[in-house]
């Protein structure tokens, strides 16, 4: 295992973007990083710059105004990258799926690798989603290697 793939596996950096979440899932994402749940023990660090991030955590569903922001953040992240949709809204649109300004789950805008259900998603579920995302990250890295990138 080279140093890059090892550090990617042992210490994935996450970035969080709130689409139209009600804040419930956002504060649970933050709670994951704080001492009780302490996702940092798994090497996970929250960063503000998409160019530094491996995993994109999205809460809330996409709407017509934030879809391009979400796409922008996704496109700025270097490959390999993984998207985790957190909460019922990000997965399907949740309680707001019938609203006039909601385009449904974020799957309609960017490809999603892991879905974390719940309203609000529990911190345990979010950490589990991130850990599954690390597995996906590994697979993607191997696929890139095979393609010779």
């Amino acid at each position, binding site marked *: 295992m080279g140093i890059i793939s090892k550090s990617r596996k042992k210490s994935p950096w996450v970035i969080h973007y*709130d689409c139209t979440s*009600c*804040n419930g899932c956002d504060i*649970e994402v933050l709670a994951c990083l*704080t001492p009780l749940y302490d996702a940092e023990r798994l090497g996970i660090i929250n960063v503000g710059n998409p160019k530094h991030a491996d995993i994109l955590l999205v809460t809330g569903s996409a709407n017509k*105004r934030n879809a391009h922001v979400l796409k922008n953040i996704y496109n700025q992240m270097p490959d390999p990258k993984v998207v985790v949709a957190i909460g019922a809204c990000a997965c399907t649109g949740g*309680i707001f799926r019938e609203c006039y300004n909601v385009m449904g789950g974020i799957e309609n805008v960017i490809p999603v690798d892991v879905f974390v259900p719940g309203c609000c998603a529990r911190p345990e579920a979010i950490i589990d989603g991130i850990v599954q995302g690390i597995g996906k990250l590994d697979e993607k890295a191997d696929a890139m290697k095979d393609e010779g990138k």
Partner: protein
Amino acid sequence: MSSTVIPFGPQHPVLPEPLHIKLVMEDENIVDAIPAIGYVHRGLEKLTETKEFTQNVFVVERVCGICSVMHAMAYCQGIEELMNIEVPDRAKFLRVIWAELHRMHSHLLWLGLLADAFGFESLFMQVWRDREKVMDIMEETAGARVVISANTIGGTRRDLTKEQMVKINVTVDEIKHDIQQVEAVFLNNYTVKHRLVGRGILSKADAIELCAVGPMARAAGIPMDLRTTGYSAYGQLDFEPVTHSDGDNYARTYVRLHEVYQSIDLIKQAIAKIPDGEHVAPFKGNPPKGEVISRVEQPRGEVLYYLRANGTKNLERLRLRTPTFQNIPSLIKMLPGSQLADVPLLILTIDPCISCTER
């Protein structure tokens, strides 16, 4: 001097939520700030017209996850007034207990984010660790951590047992002790004070003119707290609004920190005074034709619900005005003249809740 425009947000490390502000700069100084919103707009008010009035309790809880109890409380109080439902006394006290727990978690969350904004990572972690005790109480009493669905039309969905109340009493004492440990860091630390004192001043006259609400108004010396109007069981509890006269970042931190103590005191008073009896009153039929305004005090200030019913199971109109919407003009007033480095702190001290504002 030529000016530069710097976009702040929508994706920014200090904000958990997307708020976009265009900052017009001359050197390091801000001369103008233009807010742009709409990133969190869902169309929730329209959604409530298609749902039944009993289902709407769950919809309005998702206006904002941080103050969900107060949103449901305001909505239920409105419907109860419309339908003339007599809420049992016990339910009123239960609502106060859950509402004050929610206020505590919201203020502790804010104190943590503030510490993070001025770069004090370990203080952020410390405050959020203390906050988890509140979340544990919520989970134990209501079954969920954030959106707890405690309120229903006519009372509360759950009751508290004696053992649970004893435990809440012990836990809030522990939290009080924990917060006293960090209070000195927020209010007396030289470096922290340097970032807070004298920054982002909102004078009393400006606060009145710009209709600031909640801790923003109280920090500017206006003792405005809707809880003093005595809705729910607040009329039977003894408390004074926390105020400060300076109107700067420090004053707002002072007010929110002391409101945590106030909430602890209110919870203890409510537990001591809670009467026995039912926790929910039965009701029949649909809300009759009519309109009503219902207001409650949220952690961020006053929220106003306007409900209009037409005798069917669907409401004709639900309109809400949230505290952050009221406080954004004050923020735009505070920004010009301050430095770029202070912008995250200034935005944070109004305690913005964008999902409330845009719905």
